């Protein structure tokens, strides 16, 4: 059916899609870490909440693209609620405790997902024009996965614009490098931390609803995505967005190609890669804290 060219196209597109999803989840995690030094273990669960909310919205007849806007906002609201209740008091505590707190948050969110949506896998039914496949260079490739690439590109573009051009964006970037200075400029750091957590949650929600139709929506999707996003942000450099872009592409391609050629040991390769990079570049490819 597919010639050798077709296979290469298949794998490359698959890798791009996987890298894109990793990127958006990792960016969300990095925004929260870069700004308020909080490693949110519950980030995977927020990603799952995004997928499930998208499923419910589409199931009640909403158009997929409308859900693409509303679901992240809902997840952002959930993020805001979490930030105000349990993350804010942790501001002055050492990172080990925030790790364990968000670990408990992960348990709580996974349990709630199972309680609200049950155990069975769910599927998001796509609008008609996104279903089916089109042939590119000799292989049938699903239309939706191509559309995902454009959606991801649009989101990244939007985020870059938001960070570089808008006033809030500049404040966020400034406070990632020298938090003390920003607070001296009369900006209430509480809003900055709150904004960072909400923005991170929104990104997790977006990643969830995009990945919904691509992968399985079941209660365990959060946990698995969390470990992959850890691998990405550590290799890219904690808190650095550009590092996350490079790392997401690297991991996306390595994992997909490994899955294709040496199926069994794909994940072992990814972990060895992470270990090597961390061993000789402890700060990751692009180093820490540079928030552009």
């Amino acid at each position: 059916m597919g010639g050798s060219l077709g296979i290469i196209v298949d794998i490359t597109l698959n890798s791009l899609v996987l890298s894109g999803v990793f990127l958006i989840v990792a960016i969300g995690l990095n925004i929260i870490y870069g700004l308020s030094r909080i490693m949110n273990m519950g980030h995977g669960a927020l990603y799952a909440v995004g997928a499930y909310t998208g499923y419910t919205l589409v199931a009640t007849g909403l158009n997929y693209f409308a859900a693409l806007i509303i679901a992240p906002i809902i997840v952002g609201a959930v993020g805001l609620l979490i930030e105000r209740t349990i993350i804010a008091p942790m501001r002055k505590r050492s990172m080990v405790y925030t790790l364990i707190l968000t670990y408990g948050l992960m348990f709580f969110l996974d349990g709630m997902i199972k309680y609200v949506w049950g155990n069975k896998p769910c599927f998001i039914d796509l609008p008609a024009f996104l279903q089916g496949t089109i042939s590119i260079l000799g292989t049938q490739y699903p239309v939706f996965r191509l559309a995902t690439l454009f959606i991801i590109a649009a989101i990244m573009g939007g985020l870059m614009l938001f960070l570089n051009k808008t006033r809030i964006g500049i404040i966020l970037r400034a406070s990632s490098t020298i938090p003390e200075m920003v607070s001296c400029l009369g900006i209430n750091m509480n809003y900055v931390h709150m904004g960072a957590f909400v923005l991170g949650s929104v990104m997790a929600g977006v990643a969830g609803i995009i990945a919904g139709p691509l992968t399985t929506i079941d209660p365990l999707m959060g946990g698995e995505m969390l470990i992959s996003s850890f691998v990405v942000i550590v290799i890219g450099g904690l808190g650095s967005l550009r590092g996350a872009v490079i790392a997401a592409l690297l991991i996306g391609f390595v994992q997909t190609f490994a899955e294709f050629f040496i199926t069994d040991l794909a994940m072992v390769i990814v972990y060895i890669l992470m270990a090597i990079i961390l061993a000789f570049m402890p700060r990751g490819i692009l180093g820490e804290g540079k928030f552009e």
Partner: protein
Amino acid sequence: MNNTTTIPGIQKGYYPLKILIIILLLLGLGLFPFISGNRFYISLITEMMIYGLLAMSLDVLLGYTGALSFMHNAYLGISAYVVGLFLIHISPTSLWLACFTGIIFTSLVALPVGWVQVRTGGLAFALLTLAFGMMFHTIVWKWYGVTGGDDGLMGMPNPDISLFGWNLGNTGNPVTIYLFTLIIVTICFFLTRRIINSPFGAVLEAIRENEDRASFVGINVRMYKLLGWMLACILASIAGALFILYKGYIGPSTMSAFAGAGVLMMVLLGGLGSLWGAFVGAAMFIYIQDYISTMSEHWEIYLGLVVIFLVLFLPTGFVGLGEHLKRFRKG
């Protein structure tokens, strides 16, 4: 006046009261299996002691050297597999040789990993432990021929415990394994307590407090961090040997990221920087997880709430120092 050999802030040896409490505690634990005789509680306490030893070994790493490890249970797993394989394939009776091989093998694995780990610090160190841990987990899962994959190790015999010739009993009998674990864990506890209060322990604490300053005082930080890591891994491998003898079974799920984070919570529940706090934390965590998961299908919700509650309202854990990890905030 204070002669020049006392060190302020450290009381000489133990107060008599403290010694009394320790003796009473050990006596109570020692007689428990004969008093209650209910096999469930005997095996539950054995499991608590083994995980307590593992939590203590993680506390040596986190509470005393200031290095956070996400998957310290991987080294318990490696040692358990090696002891199991030794007993199955090489000789089903020589228990001490099997445990010895398990500990040595785990140390040989932990050394290169430690050498790579100490080159990083803070959160990168923690996430690197996650990477290595997941690697061991995947290798054990994939290597069906030797480790039995996700079925776990099969055909584990129950060797007798014999010391200098006379036989103390079979590891299959829960009371024997309970007492064996109690003795080994007590020895490890006092040994570790001794090491922590030794000059070597002082160096570890200095590294935890301020790594930069430590190197500027003439401490080879990487070497001592590596020695601290090896001490923690050796203690974990002893716990691994006890685990396989007690449970007769080891599988990849004991070495998973989920279980790793559980051990971390045991240390934090008990409170950092206090060795016996780790045992309190382990006992509480196992009881909470066991009790909550029988309460309802949705036990994850309640476990999550309990953890959040404990971290928010009980910052220093039940026993230990807790808050001194400021160094981590720079991260």
